[in-house]
């Protein structure tokens, strides 16, 4: 607060007698200016500290990503050696994109899409994989396509098209402070990398982090869809439904 005091400079005529009221105002302004200086210095220091902390956390996350990937590779190799099968871990994170416009939608899928925050064509949201979500997706299968995003996809989406819900407004994520103010105190997320980590690894604060993110407004895919009226897994070739890992290629074309 004190860092934002607006202190107007009084225009003093050289050598003229200064009236009483003006003297009082000068005294008050001087006191406020002092406070402001101190507050500004403190604010700068605090910000620098935050940045350092964010940097160390980011490097820790990078290590974590590399380690988990390497771990999976090792496990696969081990299984192959022993002649066993390695059961891939089930996906935790989904990215869902709405394929269909708003005209002539039946009420139940319409409501479910509203609840999942996809109110517009080509809107995308992250979702946690659990039973209730999967059931909801069943209801809207022909109207969405979804899959398991990789780290690169998550990063690119959040950096390029990330907007946050601040005060019910759609504010671009142009500064870590926006994330810090909204999610810092309560959930410990102070910057872009924190947010990305929370989303990708579906941490304990995934719900709040995800809700903070406004639904992604993606472009129409370059080179188009295949056939929106059929499912992805059908022989004749289509687009809706679960396309697992191949969602990443689609998002690359839509981002």
């Amino acid at each position, binding site marked *: 607060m004190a860092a934002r*005091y607006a*202190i107007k400079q009084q225009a003093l005529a050289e050598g003229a007698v200064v009236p009483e009221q003006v003297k009082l105002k000068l005294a008050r302004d001087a006191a406020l200016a002092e406070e402001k200086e101190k507050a500004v210095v403190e604010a700068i220091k605090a910000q620098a500290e935050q940045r350092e902390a964010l940097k160390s956390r*980011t*490097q820790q996350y990078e290590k974590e990503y590399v380690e988990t990937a390497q771990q999976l590779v090792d496990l696969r190799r081990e299984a192959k050696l022993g002649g066993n099968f390695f059961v891939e871990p089930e996906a935790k994170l989904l990215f869902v994109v709405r394929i269909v416009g708003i005209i002539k939608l039946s009420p139940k899928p319409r409501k479910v899409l509203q609840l999942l925050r996809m109110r517009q064509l080509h809107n995308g949201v992250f979702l946690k994989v659990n039973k209730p979500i999967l059931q909801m997706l069943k209801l809207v299968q022909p109207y969405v396509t979804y899959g398991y995003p990789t780290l690169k996809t998550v990063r690119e989406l959040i*950096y*390029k098209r990330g907007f946050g819900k601040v005060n019910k407004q759609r504010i671009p994520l*142009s500064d870590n402070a926006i994330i810090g103010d909204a999610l810092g105190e309560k959930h410990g997320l102070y*910057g872009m990398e924190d947010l990305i980590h929370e989303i990708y690894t579906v941490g304990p604060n995934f719900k709040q982090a995800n809700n903070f993110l406004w639904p992604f407004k993606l472009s129409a895919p370059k080179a188009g869809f295949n056939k929106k009226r059929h499912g992805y897994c059908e022989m004749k070739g289509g687009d809706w439904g679960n396309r697992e890992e191949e969602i990443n290629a689609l998002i690359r074309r839509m981002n």
Partner: protein
Amino acid sequence: MATGRPVVSVYNCENPAEKTSTVPMPQALLSPLRPDLVRYIHTNVSKNKRQPISVGAKVGYETAAESWGTGRAVARVPRAPGGGTHRSGQGAFGNMCRGGGMFSPTKTWRRWHRRVNVTQKRHAVVSALAASSLPPLVMARGHRIGQVAELPLVVSDSLESQTKTKQAVEILKKIGCTEELQRVIDSKKVRAGKGKMRNRRYTMRRGPLVVYNEDNGIVRAMRNIPGVETACVTRLNLLKVAPGGTLGRFIIWTEGAFKKMNEMYGTLKSGAPMKKGYHLLRAQMENADIARIINSTEVQSVLRPKLEAPKKFALKQNALKNKSVMARLNPAAADAKAARAAAPAAAKRKAREAASKEHNKKHKRGEDTFYKKLMRAFEAKAADEAKDGEDAEEAEE
């Protein structure tokens, strides 16, 4: 706000240059100015002298007209009966017909007069009187008071016993009303509009209003002076004190009248002795100097300091393409990039590419590329076949 001068000088009637005595300003002349109230009262009270008018009661219906009904190839409007004249068969009665009555004929029992609350009327008079003691307002209304010594202009009581108009005019001129009276005389013109044929032929401006206490001849003396009006203090009329609903009539008081104001209106604390139950108008704000109130220590000490506006956000820039934005959002980005560039994997790849280029430079294949080898094989085969053909021909011969 009326800035009260506590004391007003009284000018000698015979010799208006000298001041005989001083009178304290009555509280009524320090009332707040209420132009809205004066205008409202004036519009209503000025309706009270109207005489009813209307169109004649039977106008347009003094025919025995009847509608011919349908089937006669004419409109169904009532028509005048009979024959032998132009009038027969013409439409009658309706407002659309020539010679018919008007729509909604005006009636004499229209509500011509307006009642106004007595207290409001008194407040309006008091406010208008207060305005008349302020030179800027009187000048704004158009009176020429350049030569007048002071406002409110109070003259000694001998003015009330003037009987001759000539002397009254002289006194007025000595007081400083020459320009004012001249203005009225110069402004006499024939009225624009039908009023001129309705006994309101001339218009002219209003001059000073002379307020007296006892009429010892003043009314008759001043009756014939163009523009000058007289009024007794106990019976002040808003239509005279604020003509047209505007504040600031030029008023000339006699000493007795001025003093009587106190008895009539009293002060803010006491009621008005001569007006039962009436208390003078009170101001909305006791202290209207807002700048001073705001800058007082009592107010300033409780204010919070002014804040700068929060930073406005310009266009969003893509962090994936813009290095400085990426550095802002991800403090570790620059380091990570440098680390990747320095990593052994990158170095190995570079070395491999360099080695490959070197090798290719040294061992240029020239004629020994794959394609050329392939095509040579074809040529060789073609050459062999040609040779076989020749041999066969030779053998045949």
